[in-house]
């Protein structure tokens, strides 16, 4: 055969196979959940035969509407009833009792406009259920030939021969006869195994569990010779004091289970105990199943089954209080800390810097809270942010704590250490994972450098979420405190009155100084005052002597008074003045009159007492007192 002849046939065959497979895969959404029995299986019990499926409504309209891609239908020939033919067969022709076979109806010549009776005119005892619909295109001798095959799952409750009678289908309004077909249902042989359904179990790691621990588990649904698992959905916890989380995907894997290597569909689970003590866990899941026919082929039907795992008992312990380290925030598992990093190694006082701390490992990574870091006078700290991620394949998680720190002092050389610890369930003890200080250079801000003061709280305006403190009414003062004035002192009249004191003192000093200067410039004034004072003093003594009738004292004091009064008029000392000198200083008008007589008489009386050697006696001298006073006054009045 020439290659040019073989290639189009080969290409058409590959295309038809791919298209058929895609359509077969596309039939899954047409399954009607709930229409099939969903038995609960217990793998510990002998496997019962599956109940016979009930016939269900065939969604022909939907099948027809989603029959084929547009490009094929458009390129295909226009359906012609004369070119349309139909076949019907059972595959296999002989089916063991309580097993499933397939009834196939193939319409050759078109993809569209096919209407199959619903339900089929199946004989009594034969259960026929539409499973899928496939379409194919063949190129034979250069001509396209379309065909559509309807797959029905069949089973029967009793052995015997069942004949599906011929019936009429409508193809684009033209009746097409579907021929009859026969199937033989036989009793199973003695060597045949009973029907085996899929089973589900929970695979939990060995050991003790702690409250809050995130345990990686698996839901295993094993394949059997009669059923294969196609999909698992709606995995849910049925019992157990645990938090339960199922991964949204499953994978087929070869699993060693109780010493056997089995094909299973594995769904990762994550279980977190929440209460100390013993608890039983079991899980329920909705499983899509493919039944395997006698020939080892899938029957095409995909019933659903609600499987429930046997309960698994676990023992949960509370976290030990002993040995708890600072900074424990609920982390349970095997974690390690990555290298903390800073967003900048050199900052200015008041500028925020981000400290990123990564941790990773297996455990409750999502539940770990960032260890708190309180603000102090060195660093201002904001609530740390965290971001967690977990690899669904390995179960390992990574969490990143991000602290926003604001340095308050240029003297800082490192970030603060952050206490942090986790609990290792394998070792049964707490592990210290404290964040070490990271070296950093802090420079003074421009404002603080210029003022020479450190910034006290510079990050208030730069904080990502500044918090305005709510004002409150403060409390009472506890002690009365020192007294004060209700009004300023200057508002009190006494204040200004008191200012007179220093002003008067200064004025007095000034006046005294001025007087002293005057007297220094005029010494005669001083002498006059001294003379007057001396004259007054002597006059007082003269009066006293007159009162006491002491002649000698009276005469001496009177003469001294007259001398003192007359002395300023001359530079001679007062005590040295003689009679002539005193008389010379008397005013002219009184020279010869009373003053002169008084002065002469007093001097004569004194000379007599002094030089005669006997007492002169009173001799009326006391009568001169008034004359003496008058004489002193006269002399003072006539002084310059």
């Amino acid at each position, binding site marked *: 055969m020439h290659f040019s002849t073989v290639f189009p046939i080969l290409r058409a065959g590959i295309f038809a196979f791919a298209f058929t497979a895609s359509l077969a895969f596309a039939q899954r959404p047409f399954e009607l959940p709930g229409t099939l029995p969903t038995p609960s299986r217990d793998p510990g019990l002998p496997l019962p035969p599956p109940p016979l499926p009930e016939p269900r409504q065939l969604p022909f309209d939907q099948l027809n509407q989603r029959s084929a891609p547009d490009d094929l239908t458009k390129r295909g020939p226009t359906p012609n009833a004369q070119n349309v033919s139909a076949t019907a067969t059972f595959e296999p022709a002989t089916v063991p009792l309580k097993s499933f076979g397939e009834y196939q109806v193939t319409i050759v010549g078109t993809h569209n406009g096919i209407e199959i009776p619903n339900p089929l005119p199946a004989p009594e005892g034969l259960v026929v259920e539409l499973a899928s619909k496939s379409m194919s295109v063949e190129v034979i001798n250069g001509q396209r030939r379309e065909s559509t095959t309807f797959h029905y799952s069949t089973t029967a409750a009793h052995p015997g021969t069942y004949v599906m009678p011929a019936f009429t289908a409508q193809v684009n309004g033209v009746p097409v006869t579907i021929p009859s077909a026969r199937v033989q249902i036989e009793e199973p042989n003695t060597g045949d195994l009973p029907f085996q359904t899929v089973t589900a179990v929970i695979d939990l790691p060995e050991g003790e569990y702690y409250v809050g621990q995130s345990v990686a588990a698996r839901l295993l649904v094993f394949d059997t010779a009669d059923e294969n698992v196609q999909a698992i959905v709606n995995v849910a916890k049925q019992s157990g004091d645990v938090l339960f989380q199922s991964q949204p995907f499953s994978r087929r894997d070869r699993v060693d289970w109780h010493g056997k290597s089995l094909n299973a569909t594995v769904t990762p689970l994550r279980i977190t105990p929440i209460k100390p003590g013993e608890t039983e866990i079991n899980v329920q899941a909705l499983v899509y199943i493919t039944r395997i026919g006698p020939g080892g082929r899938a029957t095409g039907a995909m019933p659903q089954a609600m499987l429930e795992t046997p309960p698994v008992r676990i023992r949960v312990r509370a976290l030990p209080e002993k040995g708890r380290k600072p900074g424990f925030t609920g982390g349970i598992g095997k974690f390690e800390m990555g290298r903390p990093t800073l967003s900048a190694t050199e900052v200015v006082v008041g500028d925020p810097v981000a400290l990123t701390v990564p941790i990773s490992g297996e455990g409750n990574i999502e539940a770990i809270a960032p260890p708190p870091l309180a603000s102090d006078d060195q660093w201002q700290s904001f609530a740390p942010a965290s971001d967690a991620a977990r690899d669904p394949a390995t179960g390992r998680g990574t969490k990143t704590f991000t602290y926003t720190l604001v340095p308050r002092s240029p003297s800082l050389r490192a970030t603060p250490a952050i206490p942090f610890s986790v609990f290792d369930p394998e070792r049964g003890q707490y592990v210290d994972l404290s964040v070490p200080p990271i070296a950093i250079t802090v420079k003074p801000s421009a404002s603080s450098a210029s003022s020479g003061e450190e910034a006290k709280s510079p990050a208030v305006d730069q904080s990502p979420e500044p918090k305005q403190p709510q*004002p409150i009414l403060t409390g009472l003062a506890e002690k*009365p405190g020192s007294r004060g004035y209700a009004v300023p002192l200057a*508002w009190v009249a006494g204040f200004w009155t008191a200012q007179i004191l220093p002003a008067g003192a200064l004025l007095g*000093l000034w006046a005294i100084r001025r007087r002293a200067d005057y007297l220094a410039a005029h010494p005669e004034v001083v002498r006059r005052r001294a003379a007057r004072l001396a004259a007054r003093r002597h006059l007082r003594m003269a009066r006293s002597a007159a009162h006491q009738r002491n002649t000698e004292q009276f005469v001496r004091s009177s003469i001294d008074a007259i001398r003192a009064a007359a002395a300023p008029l001359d530079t001679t000392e007062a005590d040295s003045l003689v009679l002539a000198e005193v008389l010379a200083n008397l005013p002219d008008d009184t020279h010869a009159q009373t003053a002169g007589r008084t002065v002469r008489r007093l001097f004569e009386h004194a000379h007599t007492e002094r030089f005669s050697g006997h007492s002169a006696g009173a001799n009326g001298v006391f009568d001169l007192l008034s004359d003496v006073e008058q004489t002193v006054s006269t002399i003072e009045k006539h002084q310059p």
Partner: protein
Amino acid sequence: MSPEFGSRKARHGGHRAVGAAVLLLLTSAYVSAADTSAFEVGHAAYEAGKFAEASTAFSQAPTSAEALHNLGNAEYRLGHLGPAILAWERARALNPGYRDTVANLRFARGQAGLEQPEASWYENYSAFMTPNRWIVIAMLSFWAAVALLVLPHLLRVRRTLWTQAAAVAAIVTFLLTLPALVGIIARNRIGIVMAANTALRLTPTKEGEVLGSLPEGELARVEKKRGDYWYIRASSDRAGWVSHQEFMRLWQ
């Protein structure tokens, strides 16, 4: 005079001095005890929730920043915003560094929606210390400067370097007090609206046309006086005549 007599006389004089001192101490102790009692009575009444009694007691206590602060608290708890702010302003004038009072003023004005009063730079300068402290410093520095300049001449004492330096320091100190004194004089015009919705009238009469109103606790400045009315000006140039009963000056 015999030595005996002299010593007896001196002893008698010492007894009189000691007696006078004891009497003075007892009097001051009695007065202080009475003052403390009023303060404590007010404190206890406030703690018991009897704010009216607390207000009365604190107003009877001797004038101090603490007593005025507590009086403001009691008045505020009574719902008397004007008297409360007045008391706190007076307390702040007596002790500008008392942060609780400043916080309460900010709180009360914030709660009442009142504007924070604006002050000129010399008013703020004068608020750095109490008015009396400024006045005493000004007085002492003034007389010190005068004395240091005049006394050497009057006493015929040679001027030395330290006396001249002291005179310069006194003069500088006095000059520094001058803006504060101006600020104190300006603050003397400050007052607080004591009644809610106090009417600002066009004329200083009871029947004067109402130009607007001021909320209780608003700070304003007196510009003129006519009889029982003051012409006051608040922020945003809201001005008018108010009666004495509706407005209380800071130092009155």
